[in-house]
């Protein structure tokens, strides 16, 4: 058996396994001997807090806020583009102004669409 070319591999495998499992086993033994469990209803409560939890965690809530968030983000990014546009306005040609107008109108169209869909109405 020792003549097998895989013998040294098997020895290394067992050693590697022992290296991983021995600390786990020792920790388990230590916990058995020196940390007796002391459970009680307060300690085992689902949520750790000075106050007793009330009600059920399974409640429904509207996730509508993300629509507001996205619309805000779009116009926030628009403002980032508008600022350099305003700074360089006097030096710009008609084509640049038209391009910026298209950009703003595209976003305004999106806002109008969202408005028409009733997204801006909080329910």
């Amino acid at each position, binding site marked *: 058996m020792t003549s097998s070319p895989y013998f040294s591999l098997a020895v290394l495998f067992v050693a590697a396994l022992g290296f991983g499992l021995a600390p786990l086993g020792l920790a388990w033994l230590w916990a058995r001997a*020196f*940390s*007796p469990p*002391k*459970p*009680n*209803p*307060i*300690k085992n*409560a689902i949520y*750790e*807090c*000075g*106050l*007793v939890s009330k009600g059920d965690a399974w409640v429904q809530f509207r996730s509508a806020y993300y629509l507001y968030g996205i619309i805000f983000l779009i116009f926030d990014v628009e403002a980032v583009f508008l600022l350099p546009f305003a700074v360089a306005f006097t030096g710009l040609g008609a084509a640049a102004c038209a391009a910026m107008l298209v950009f703003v109108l595209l976003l305004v169209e999106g806002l109008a669409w969202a408005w028409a869909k009733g997204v801006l109405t909080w329910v």
Partner: protein
Amino acid sequence: MMNYELESNDMDQELKIELGKQGIFVTTIEDLYNWGRRSSVWPMQFGLACCAIEMIATTMARYDLARFGAEVFRPSPRQADLMIVSGTVTKKMAPQVVRLYNQMAEPRYVIAMGACAISGGPFKQGYNVLKGIDRYIPVDVHIPGCPPRPEALIQAFITLQEKIDGQHLTGPDRPRYLDANAQGEFPVPERGEHDLEPTSNQGVWPVQIQGLRD
């Protein structure tokens, strides 16, 4: 009992010092275990009143509680070893403090910081002030002061470390948390008509309480 006496390292103290002089380091599992525990006491992150400001100062750069291994203030009682009751415990707050203490994992320690936490302090005559948190939970170290300076909190912490160092893993004088039969629940008081009910935990506060002013 006899076996325990032999294992105790108190008897070998001189031999230990002698071997240390020769460059040989001798220790016990108990010593190593306690060294590890006292060097990583994680306090719970909560403050009740003005003492909490001093507690915060203690953790910051000038006083630096991190030197003693206690810089990690945990926001969850399940990850904390030490409860620093820093400030006035009102009767409205006492049930929450006791409940949080119950939710801490064993072994757990309590430092009652300041005059209010140990006795009610200047507000002792107040109808809504608990006259010492040690009426409901076992306190390991009391620090007087109003508020105690950060040095006082550090000294209390070192005192607690010494206490942890002296705790035995086996034997009749081992701490409560190592005793499988000892209970780990400390009853949470409730707000009664005139006072908290019960007015104290008889297990940790054997003194009889007569009236509201006691």
